C-alpha cells in the first residue's frame, strides 16, 4: 500500500487545496441565496479546468488524462471533503466513468466534452425506496418502443437533483439491469427537493413517468446486463466518498486539537486535561484507521482486487460511523460555540450525517459483509 504521495500527487494535492481555499468559503454555505446555482456553476467550470472531471476521460480517444485516475481522484476528493466542496465531484465522475466504459459513441461525443470542461453536470439516480442502495432495490424499468426506450420509476436521494443536467438512471429492461442517461428537463421527469441536513449539497427524489430515451442514450450494450458496471460504479462512489469523509474528519479533528490547545480553563489549556487527551488519542486511532482504509480501498479498486467489495463494506462501515461519532465529540469539546449557526462545526456534522447513509449506511454494509463471508 502506497501511503506516501508521489511528487506529482503532492502537487495535485496542494493545487487542489489552494484552489478550494481561494474559491470556496464555508460562510457561503450558511448564506445560500437565489443566485447560488450560478455561483456553483462558475465554481464547477473552474474546478473542471483543473482536471477534476476528466481523470477517466480519454483525450481524443488516446489515453485518459490521468494514468492513475482513481488514486488522483481520491486525492482531490480528500481535499474536497476538507472544504465541504459543494459541486458534485463524486457524482460527475461516477457518470463519466460509466460513460467512458459503456457509453455509445454518440453519447460520448455529445456529453464527455461538456462533463470534462464543467459545462455539463450529471448525477447518478440509483437508490429507490427508503435507503434502497442495493441493486436488488431497483424497481424502475424501461421498455422498447420503436427507436426509443420508455422509462418509468421512482428514484430517491439523488445528489444535486435540482442542479444536475443529466441523470444516469439504473433500471431494468426485462430481466437485465440497464442504465440510461436522461436530461433533467426531459418530459416526464419530476423532482422533489428534499429537506437535507447537509447544507453543502442539494438532494431530491426524482420520478420518471413515461420518459422517452433515445436508444443511443442507453449506457451499456442492449441485451447485456449492467450488473458489473453498476457494481463498479458503486465501488467508485464508496471509494471517493470515504476519501472525502476522511479529509473532512482529519480537518475537524485537527481544528479541535488546535482549539483545545488555545482554550484556557482553570489556568491551563483544556488540552492538558487527561480526560480530553485520552479522548483525542482514541479519536486519533480511529482517524488513522479511516485514512489507512481509504487508501487501501482506493488501491484495491484501482487494481481490481477480487476482495474489493468486502473491503468497501468494511471501509464505509468504519468511516461512516466513526466520522459522525468523532465530529460529534469534537462539538462537545468545542462546547457551546459549536452549537451556533456561525460556527463551522455543524456544517461538517451535517454533511457527515448525510454521507453516513448516502450510498449505503454502516448498518446495511455490516449486513452485506455478513452475506459476503457466507453467514
Amino acid at each position, binding site marked *: 500500500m502506497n501511503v506516501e504521495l508521489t511528487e506529482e500527487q503532492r502537487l495535485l494535492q496542494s493545487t487542489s487545496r489552494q484552489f478550494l481555499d481561494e474559491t470556496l468559503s464555508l460562510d457561503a454555505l450558511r448564506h445560500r441565496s437565489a443566485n447560488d446555482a450560478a455561483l456553483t456553476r462558475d465554481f464547477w467550470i473552474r474546478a473542471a479546468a483543473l482536471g477534476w472531471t476528466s481523470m477517466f476521460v480519454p483525450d481524443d480517444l488516446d489515453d485518459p488524462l490521468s494514468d492513475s485516475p482513481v488514486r488522483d481522484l481520491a486525492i482531490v476528493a480528500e481535499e474536497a471533503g476538507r472544504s465541504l466542496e459543494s459541486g458534485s465531484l463524486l457524482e460527475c465522475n461516477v457518470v463519466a466513468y460509466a460513460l467512458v466504459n459503456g457509453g455509445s459513441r454518440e453519447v460520448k461525443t455529445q456529453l464527455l466534452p461538456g462533463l470534462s470542461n464543467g459545462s455539463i453536470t450529471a448525477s447518478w439516480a440509483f437508490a429507490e425506496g427508503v435507503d434502497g442502495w442495493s441493486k436488488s432495490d431497483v424497481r424502475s424499468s424501461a421498455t422498447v418502443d420503436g427507436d426509443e426506450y420508455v422509462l418509468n420509476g421512482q428514484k430517491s436521494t439523488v445528489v444535486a437533483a435540482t442542479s444536475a443536467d443529466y441523470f444516469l438512471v439504473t433500471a431494468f429492461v426485462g430481466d437485465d439491469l440497464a442504465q440510461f442517461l436522461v436530461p433533467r428537463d426531459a418530459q416526464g421527469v419530476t423532482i422533489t427537493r428534499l429537506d437535507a441536513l447537509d447544507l453543502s449539497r442539494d438532494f431530491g427524489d426524482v420520478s420518471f413517468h413515461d420518459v422517452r430515451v433515445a436508444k443511443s442514450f442507453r449506457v451499456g450494450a442492449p441485451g447485456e446486463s449492467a450488473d458489473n458496471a453498476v457494481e463498479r460504479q458503486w465501488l467508485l462512489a464508496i471509494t471517493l466518498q470515504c476519501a472525502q469523509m476522511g479529509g473532512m474528519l482529519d480537518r475537524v479533528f485537527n481544528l479541535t486539537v488546535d482549539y483545545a490547545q488555545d482554550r484556557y480553563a482553570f489556568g491551563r489549556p483544556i488540552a492538558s486535561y487527561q480526560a480530553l487527551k485520552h479522548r483525542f488519542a482514541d479519536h486519533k486511532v480511529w482517524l488513522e484507521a479511516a485514512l*489507512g482504509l481509504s487508501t*487501501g480501498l482506493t488501491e484495491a479498486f484501482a487494481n481490481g482486487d477480487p476482495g474489493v467489495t468486502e473491503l468497501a463494506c468494511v471501509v464505509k462501515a468504519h468511516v461512516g460511523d466513526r466520522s459522525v461519532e468523532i465530529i460529534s465529540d469534537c462539538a462537545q469539546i468545542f462546547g457551546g460555540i459549536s452549537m451556533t449557526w456561525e460556527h463551522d462545526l455543524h456544517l461538517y456534522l451535517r454533511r457527515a450525517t448525510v454521507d453516513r447513509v448516502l450510498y449505503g449506511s454502516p448498518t446495511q454494509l455490516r449486513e452485506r459483509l455478513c452475506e459476503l463471508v457466507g453467514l
Partner: protein
Amino acid sequence: MTSVNVEEADVEDLESFNARARAWAVENLPVAVDNVQARADAEDHVKQVAKARRTQRLIFDGGFAGLRYPKEYGGQGLTREHQLAWREVTSDRDIGCLSHLKVTHGIMGPTLLDFGTEEQKQRHIPAMLRGDELWVQFLSEPNAGSDLASLLTRAQREGDVYILNGSKIWSTFAHVSDYALVLSRTNLDVPKHSGLSMLILPIRSKGVTLRTIQLATGSAEFCEEFFDDVFIPVSDIVGQENDGWSVVMRLFFHERNMVGGNSLNDQDAAGVGESAVSTEEQLLALARSVGNSKDSHTRQLIGEALVLDRLADYTIQRVNALMKSGAMPGPGASIVKLMRSLSKYRFKEIALEVGGAHVVLSGPDDEVGGHGHRWLVARIGTIAGGSSEMQRNAISERVLGLPRDHSPDTQLPFRDVLAQRQR
C-alpha cells in the same frame, strides 16, 4: 541504531532466496495442523519451549535463522523483504511454537545489538539464534507498572559485582527461559530516571526465587521473581551505569516494532497456542453453532467484529509508512498498540454476546467454551505491554503534542520521593 543496513550487492536476490527457502521448508518443516489449544499449564509450556528450541536449531542449521541479524553474530544479514518472503514460505508450516522466541529475537536480541559490548554480543546473540538461550525482560514490579521508573529493586555495587535485591513481576514465560535483562536502581540520590541500570541475569542464579502466577483462567504464563543477594559481575551491565532508562526506552521501541510485525524476529508475533483458524472463522462458527446467525442484532455485532479485524492491517501499514518517512513521530507505534488491543478486546466481547449462555455454561466437550475463557482474560491485551491509558498518554503528548501531565517526582532525588511516600 541496530545495524541492519546491508549492502545490496552482498545480498542474495529475493527470487533465489525464495526458491531456496521454499525447498528447505518443504523438506524440513512439517505442515501445520490446526490444534485449538485450550488452557495451557506450566507443563505444556515446557513441552512447547522444548519444541521451539528444536525447531529453531533446525532452522539455524539450515541457514535461515536471524534473517535480519548481522552475519558476524550468526545471522543471515538479509533484508525486510527476505523476512517477509520467509514468513510467506513458512505460513503453512508447523512453527507456532516459535512464538516462544519472539521476545528473545524481536526485543532482547535487538536491544543487546544496540547497547551490548562486543563480548556480550558474541556470547549471547548466536546462542539466541540457535535456540539455546531464551531471554525475558524483568521490568515491572509489584509497585511499579506504568510508572516503571519508580521501581525499587536495588543493585548495589561492591567492587566487581552488583548485589541485587528486590522483586519483579509479570515476566512472561520466565520459568522456561534462561536469561533476563533486569532493570534495577543503582543510585538513590538522583531523580528516578537517572539512577537505573540494565543488567544481564542468568535466571537460575543463586538467590533468585521464581514462581509462576496462576491467571484467572487457571493458565500460568506469567511469573514473579524474588532476588536475595544475587551476585552479578559488573561486566554484565548493558549500556552505561545509571543510563538504564535509555536502554529500556530502546527495548520498548523494539517491542513496539515487534507488535507491529516489523522487528528482527523472523516470524510475525503470533500468540502462543492460538489456533491456526482465524478468529474471524471462530466467530462465524460460534454464531452458526449457537443458532443465531440469522438474527439481525447478531449480524450487526459480527459485522462490527469483521470491520475491526480487517482494519488492522491498513492502519498498521499507514502508521508504519508515516513513521518511516518522518511524517509521524516514533510514538505513533502507540496508535497501533491501542488500535490492536481495543479491537481484540471488543472482538472477544462480541463473541461473548453472540455466544450467550453457550460460552459461559458450556458442556465438557463443548468447544465454544473457549470463547468464554478468552473473554475472561481479554483485558490482558489492554494492560500488558503498556496499558491503554499509557498508550493514550503517549499518543496525546508525543504524537499530537498536547501538554504533558504534571509529575511531582521527576526532578527530586529518588530517596526524597520515597521519604515523601512514607509520610
